């Protein structure tokens, strides 16, 4: 694989990444958009298709690998990050992708997700967050808002929801981003950024479930409201939003507040995004799901850090350099032995 990388890249179209399997999500599901944007952007990534592996767990999102004409493994509930870790450590040359959902990745598989993030393997996690259990027909999920009325919570859910990007930051992720299923260009850009980040990339995708949780992100996608409800993040740019680009985020001490860019405040007063600033990323993450703030969309955080698989490979190489390639016959005879004649 290392050799093929050195030679000229193969040229692909989006159809090269589509498998022959019929796609079986509900009509109108946000997953279609994610699949389409993924297949669209992949030819631009420059990765040979045979080196791409999609690993998923269980849930609607986890059918994803069947539809990608790459290597794929539809595994068991919650375990995709651990299986992907085995793949990546075994062969660091592969481009490894985990497709998961809010139930798969944050509930049953929450442990694997946080440990993948802290180890910083170069794996790209696409977390489809529809804030509901779809495949099991509509129970509340760990990202559902409190008081959610579902089949399993007729009197309202009691759990406080997880905010995935805060969780990822808390787990020491090196790349944390968020996009929306309806924002096709932005999603492509975020998938590309995830691919290019060396280390675990955590991309949360706000995804609408038409059947069981329709409109979960309506305020972020409806024309009338989205300009006030989406804060588009760009590195080095002030955090300005609103239909007239007339609102901004300012820090009052360590408390975020919204300022109107009129005579009193100008763009110079607005906080400038810095993807490498953990404090800014954490503050932005904390704005999630709030009525009084827009949801930050884009790359919240991105830093460089060594990857687990590189260090694991280095340890093997160093051991071989120092001691030579081990021979089992020598190993068997090491230590105290004696002859019986």
């Amino acid at each position, binding site marked *: 694989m290392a050799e093929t990388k050195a030679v000229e890249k193969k040229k692909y179209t989006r159809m090269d990444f589509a498998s022959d399997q019929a796609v079986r999500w509900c009509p109108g599901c946000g997953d279609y958009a994610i699949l389409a944007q993924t297949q669209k952007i992949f030819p631009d990534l420059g990765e040979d298709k045979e080196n791409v592996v999609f690993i998923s767990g269980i849930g609607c999102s986890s059918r994803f690998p069947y539809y990608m*004409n790459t290597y794929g493994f539809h595994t*068991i509930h919650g375990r995709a990050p651990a299986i992907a870790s085995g793949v990546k450590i075994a062969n660091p040359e592969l481009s490894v992708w985990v497709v998961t959902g809010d139930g798969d990745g944050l509930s049953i598989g929450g442990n694997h997700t946080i440990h993948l993030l802290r180890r910083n393997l170069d794996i790209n996690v696409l977390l489809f967050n529809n804030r509901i259990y779809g495949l099991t027909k509509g129970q509340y999920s760990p990202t559902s808002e409190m008081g959610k009325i579902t089949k399993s919570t007729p009197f309202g859910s009691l759990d406080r929801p997880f905010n995935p990007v805060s969780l990822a930051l808390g787990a020491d992720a090196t790349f944390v981003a968020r996009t929306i299923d309806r924002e096709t260009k932005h999603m492509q850009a975020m998938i590309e950024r995830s691919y290019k980040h060396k280390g675990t990339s955590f991309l949360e995708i706000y995804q609408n479930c038409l059947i069981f949780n329709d409109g979960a992100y309506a305020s972020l996608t409806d024309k009338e409201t989205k300009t006030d409800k989406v804060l588009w993040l760009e590195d080095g740019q002030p955090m300005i939003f609103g239909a007239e680009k007339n609102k901004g985020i300012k820090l009052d001490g360590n408390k975020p507040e919204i300022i109107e860019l009129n005579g009193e405040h100008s763009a110079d007063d607005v906080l400038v995004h810095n993807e490498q600033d953990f404090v800014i990323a954490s503050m932005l993450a904390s704005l999630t799901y709030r009525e009084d703030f827009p949801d930050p969309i884009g790359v919240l955080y991105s830093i460089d850090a060594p990857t687990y698989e590189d260090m694991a490979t280095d340890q093997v190489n160093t051991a071989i350099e*120092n001691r030579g390639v081990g021979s089992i016959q020598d190993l068997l005879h090491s230590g105290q032995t*004696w002859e019986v004649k």
Partner: protein
Amino acid sequence: MEKTLKNVDDVVIRFAGDSGDGMQLTGGRFTDTTAIVGNDLSTLPDFPSEIRAPTGSLAGVSAFQIHFSSKDIHTPGDKVDVLVAMNPAALKVHREELESGGMLICNAAAFTKKNLTYAGFDSNPLEDGSLGDYFRVFDIDMSKIVKEACADMGLTPKTVERTKNLFALGLLFWIYDCPMEPTKNWLEKKFAKRPELIEANVRSMNAGFNYGETTEIFTTRYKVDKADLPAGTYRNIVGNYALSLGLVAAAERSNLPLFYGGYPITPASDILHHLSALKHHNIKTFQAEDEIAGMTSIIGAAFTGNLAVTASSGPGIALKSEALGLAVIAELPMVIVNVQRGGPSTGLPTKTEQADLFQAIFGRNGEAPLPVIASATPGDCFFTAYEACRIALKYMTPVLLLTDGYLANGSEPWAIPNVDDLEPINVKFADTSSMVDGQFMPYLRDKDTLARPWAIPGTSGLEHRIGGLEKEDVTGNVSHDPENHHHMTLTRQQKVNNVVNDIPPTEIFSDASGELLILSWGGTKGACRSAAEDLQADGKSVSHVHLRWVNPLPKDLGEILIRFKNVLVPEINMGQLNKLIRAEYLVDAQGLNLVRGKPIGKSRIIEKVNEILGS
């Protein structure tokens, strides 16, 4: 005073003391020395699950048993000939197993009122005469003697006190006419940076040796001659290490990188420790966040073309079970080791048991068959690990390897094999030649083994998807078709059944028919073989068969079983193999079921056989 030297064939010594008394170290040194002398031996460490229970408590007693002999032996021994009890708690816990008339060596200094009360003694057994009728008692103030031996060294009293195990060791070396040189060399290596500790330990060991030589308390020394072992180069080997080396051998012979994913658990953790120190053998070890990730990471590594292995014990295997089902349906090669311990639940983490046989064979949802192989002795762990890998790769299937706490920590002298003599492991990854009409067929099977092709990511043209959903044979596409599911269920079973073709004819020790057959699997082999030897020597019509593969069972087992009037299956469980045998072959096999966290002793088997034979 003239001391006599007597030859004996067979001795069992148990060193017992507080967790902090260094009993495992003492036992280990004695073991290595008898190995050098050329005795056959078998050892059994027995330690508490508490890392350091309160000093002097019953819970904190740690012991190490060694059976050494001039004959070929198979077990760590039933009854103890010499018990070294470093405190009252050690005496309390172990005295029942000391042979009547056996030697009891105690550190008198530890028999204080406080320790005696703690151990539940109303009076001091060394003084109240309660032991003298049964045992030859030697109460020695070891603490005082080592204090004198190291008096001019300027060491702290605590440091000096900690050398008293070497006094006991030195004394045992004198009693059994063993050289001290190997231990001196070992100490010099271990404490290379602390010369004062080498000196103190050697002084205490010498003091023990001289105590036997000069005092009039001991009148007799014993000599255990070299055992008549087959020619070869030998080493002493502990089960978990042998198992690790078997994996390394399989990786080397198959020319695959070894990937080990695991989570720490007693008594399997040593496998992770050993392999993580052998990275220059192209081994990657991954300490996962939990048992499930240990298991699923190896599924990922197997998908990617590594020799993938995990090890755990019963509770961890329970957590891995769902993923094991995925490994079965994905038909990927890997080895899962269960170092069995006492259950249920957390059970007896440091003790041995054989109660996970059903879990191994049946413990998954759905029809999820996989081959199961079991190690018989510490050294056999090498060969079974190798064989498990070979079969996994040949048949493209997960293989479960069962060992147990006794095998894992026990040791024996081991004739080092020549790795080139082991059956070769040929791995061929799929290439474009396994395509049909330009399409790769991930479930197009080998006609003989039913193995599917192993197409690893990175191979151009073979991009394909697999998963936990039922799949259509040949294409691997998701399928809910009833006939296909039935066909795939039968096919997965047939693939496991085909492993019988790799099982050599069953060896029968010794007559092929008779009154009674002892049938064993796993770590009870030694006790069963010893019992059969004794019974045969006694003129009884008793044979022994040991099963290496427990799933599938060997082709010829049925015809062997019916040639015996009685079948006895000794197991450290409630009769799991016995139930399988009865169900599979409709024979009226009986069980001998002792679930005490310890190996079954041969004497219990002999008793049971005699009871069945009415003699």
